[in-house]
């Protein structure tokens, strides 16, 4: 009978826990999320904020050294939580439904939802009190961040240039291995035809790497959302910059669909031709991202289209460590268009901000002024140097002229996951200047520091750049000015949802392109395959999203005129 009693008690305990267990914890549990001390009497108490950033990222450790230094300087810190295993919309939607938010939030694709839900604190009245925040943007830029209800809610963290644009890394480009250029004595490659011609000739002469594995002349990545490698070069090849979803004709100020225009068709025709010649990798359309990176890292791929951030950090490193850079396997970009007379606009100068999202303070924040003070302090020169460069002597060295540089070991550390978590704290999704550092001598971050950048390049890239008389990739690729106040249109098209006909058309078109573009490249008869694709494309009513883009274009132009 004792056992029976014990069991009954156990079961009752279980059931009781079910009913009461949750209730008792209201206070204890939720208090953990916002440990903000009262602002009136600081005296040495560290303020702790929480931030949710709806993008992937790496958490830093609680005992992160640079973070501790920053905290000592400004008396506040923030715990950043990143997006995992969900889409931004879903994560944000659940938060809104629950009504509880962390102190700071960047909703990324879900920003509009937060605004609609009234979860954000209006910043306009506070801005004047915080000098670093106020000077972060020009009047014009602040105006562009104003929402429909007249208030400003968030600060876009990226693309804000101080003094001079020091960028060294391109976005999207046609890339080619340095050994191919070297083999032909570093020729001028200006057109698509010249590009493929060079690759074909090189491949005929040198079909394998030094160790005998076959080269892959040209590969394409079209895995999931990374399929820009396949679908948008037509836009650049026609000589237009990256508006993402369309071309903007600067003379008529109208939106033009690059999916149907002749330059895109020519681009795909060329790909089709090269596919038949065996130049285009037949696995292009089924490979996944990991396989693509593996191919690039093995040094076998002679050329491809891609955005630097998609492969550059991992692949270039891998090539260097394997010593393949001595064989000339690193990549440089080429400013290609379809026609010699058309100027390419592969890289547009910075300075335009993506107003669709940014860092905001939520209504759950109990200490808005403290939060703003925190943002303000993060923008002070000393803290910015800590964020971008690290600790002097440990992460970078200063010479007698005040120029920063790094040793190889420091560079290796900066790339190491464990070191970054325990030692470096960039607060990357909090507002930060790029371009020049406030000390007037160095660049804001090591990636943009000219000498540093060049020294960190693989040997063959250095040789190649020198042969063309350049110091950085961008000098090779060319930097063009921002075409107009509407740029970039992708900041608008990224916020499309199916609640508008344009948004629905947009999703349908993407689906069609995923299926038909590979078919078009692999087709036996290009013209009939293209016509078939066009037929299905038209069925998706693309004019709907073009119309929406046009409306937005006009709106932006008008806003700038005021």
């Amino acid at each position: 009978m004792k056992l029976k009693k014990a069991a009954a008690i156990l079961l009752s305990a279980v059931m009781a826990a079910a009913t009461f267990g949750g209730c008792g914890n209201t206070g204890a549990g939720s208090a953990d999320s916002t440990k903000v001390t009262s602002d009136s009497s600081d005296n040495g108490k560290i303020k702790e904020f929480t931030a949710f950033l709806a993008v992937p990222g790496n958490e830093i450790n609680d005992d992160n050294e640079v973070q501790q230094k920053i905290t000592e300087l400004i008396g506040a810190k923030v715990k950043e939580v990143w997006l995992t295993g969900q889409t931004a919309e879903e994560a944000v939607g659940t938060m809104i439904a629950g009504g509880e938010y962390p102190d700071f939030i960047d909703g990324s694709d879900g920003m509009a939802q937060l605004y609609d839900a009234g979860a954000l604190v209006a910043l306009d009245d506070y801005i004047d009190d915080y000098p670093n925040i106020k000077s972060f943007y020009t009047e014009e830029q602040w105006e562009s961040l104003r929402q429909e209800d007249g208030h400003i809610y968030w600060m876009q963290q990226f693309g804000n240039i101080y003094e001079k644009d020091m960028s060294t890394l391109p976005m999207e480009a046609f890339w080619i291995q340095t050994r191919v250029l070297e083999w032909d004595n570093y020729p001028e490659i200006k057109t698509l035809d010249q590009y493929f011609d060079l690759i074909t000739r090189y491949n005929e002469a040198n079909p394998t790497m030094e160790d005998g594995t076959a080269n892959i002349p040209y590969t394409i990545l079209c895995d999931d959302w990374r399929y820009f490698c396949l679908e948008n070069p037509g836009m650049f090849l026609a000589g237009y910059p990256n508006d993402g979803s369309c071309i903007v004709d600067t003379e008529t100020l109208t939106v033009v669909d690059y999916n149907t225009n002749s330059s895109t068709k020519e681009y795909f025709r060329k790909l089709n031709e090269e596919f038949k010649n065996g130049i285009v990798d037949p696995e292009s359309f089924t490979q996944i991202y990991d396989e693509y990176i593996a191919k690039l890292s093995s040094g076998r791929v002679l050329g491809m289209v891609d955005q630097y951030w998609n492969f550059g950090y991992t692949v270039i490193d891998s090539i260097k460590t394997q010593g393949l850079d001595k064989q000339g396997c690193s990549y440089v970009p080429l400013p290609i268009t379809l026609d010699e007379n058309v100027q390419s606009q592969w890289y547009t100068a910075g300075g335009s901000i993506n107003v669709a999202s940014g860092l905001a303070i939520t209504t759950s924040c109990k200490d808005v002024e403290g939060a703003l003070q925190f943002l303000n302090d993060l923008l002070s020169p000393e803290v910015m140097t800590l964020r971008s460069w690290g600790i002097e002597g440990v992460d970078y060295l200063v010479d007698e002229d005040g120029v920063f540089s790094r040793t190889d070991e420091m560079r290796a550390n900066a790339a190491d996951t464990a070191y970054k978590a325990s030692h470096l704290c960039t607060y990357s999704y909090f507002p930060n200047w790029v371009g020049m550092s406030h000390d007037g001598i160095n660049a804001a971050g090591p990636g943009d520091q000219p000498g540093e950048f060049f020294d960190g390049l693989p040997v063959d890239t250095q040789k190649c750049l020198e042969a063309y008389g350049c110091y950085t990739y961008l000098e090779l690729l060319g930097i063009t000015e921002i075409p107009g106040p509407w740029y970039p249109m992708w900041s608008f098209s990224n916020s499309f949802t199916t609640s508008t006909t344009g948004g629905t058309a947009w999703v349908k078109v993407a689906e069609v392109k995923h299926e038909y573009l590979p078919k078009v490249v692999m087709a036996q008869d290009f013209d009939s395959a293209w016509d078939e694709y066009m037929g299905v494309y038209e069925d998706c009513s693309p004019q709907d999203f073009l119309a929406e883009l046009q409306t937005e274009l006009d709106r932006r132009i008008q806003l700038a005129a005021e």
Partner: protein
Amino acid sequence: MKQKELKVRPKKNKTSIPDKLFTVCNTIFMLVFVVITLYPVLNTLAISFNNGTDALRGGIYLWPRQWTLQNYKTVLQKNNLITGAYVTVGRTVIGTVFSLVTNALLAFIVSRKRFLFKAQLSLFWVITMYVNGGLIPVFMLYKNLNLTNTFWVYVIPGMISAFNMLVIRTYMYGIPDSLEESAQLDGAGYMTIFIKIISPLCKPVYATVALFSAVGHWNSWFDAMLYNRMSNQYTTLQYELMKLLSSVTNQGASAETMKNAVSAVTPTSVRAAATIITMLPIVCLYPFLQRYFVAGLTIGGVKE
């Protein structure tokens, strides 16, 4: 007693050749199966011991190309891993106990021949397997029950699982009624029958359900993310490890969002190390449960 040693031999010889053939084929099949099943695990193990940059190239199969322990160091130095481990162990133990007790009792009730509402109660629970309110309604329910931002959100909501309950019920069906009846004749109530008579015979199925429940708790991270996202103290081991793996696949993201998140790419090798670390404890748990999967426990002592 010598009598037991008298074995009946004659008929055995007739079946020995097909029997041997079967054994040979079975053994070959098992070997092939083991190789195919073991390969992905060994592959992951090899990658976990391989240098991250080198692993990018692919081409690692059963043995690391550039041996390193760095990946494990990277994983183990992750913030909050210890807290996460404590919470996970806690929820696995508590959750499994809660789960087993409730599912077993419910299965017992539903399997009693004379229970008045067994069809209705079964139906009630079967339906729960196929209907789901959706992410947001469930979130709001837990919030209103004050379960969010606590430890209890891990062990209370998922306690009763129709699937586990039905598995136990099926097993209990196999226990002869005579046991229950003779116990009732001796004056035992239902609880006594459950605890003293039925449960000891259910060890194999209890072990199975305990295993399922334990593994479920051990591996879960989605609930930690949804209900305890910003909390340091209630994070789980898997959630912390999952954070390490972020950015590997991102559904429906846009290129412009991803380009700013670039420094977040975690090498494949770290991913592999995290996987191995998670797997290890469960693999060690299994041998403890295996002794319950022993034949003959059930029908011991039935005199018919």
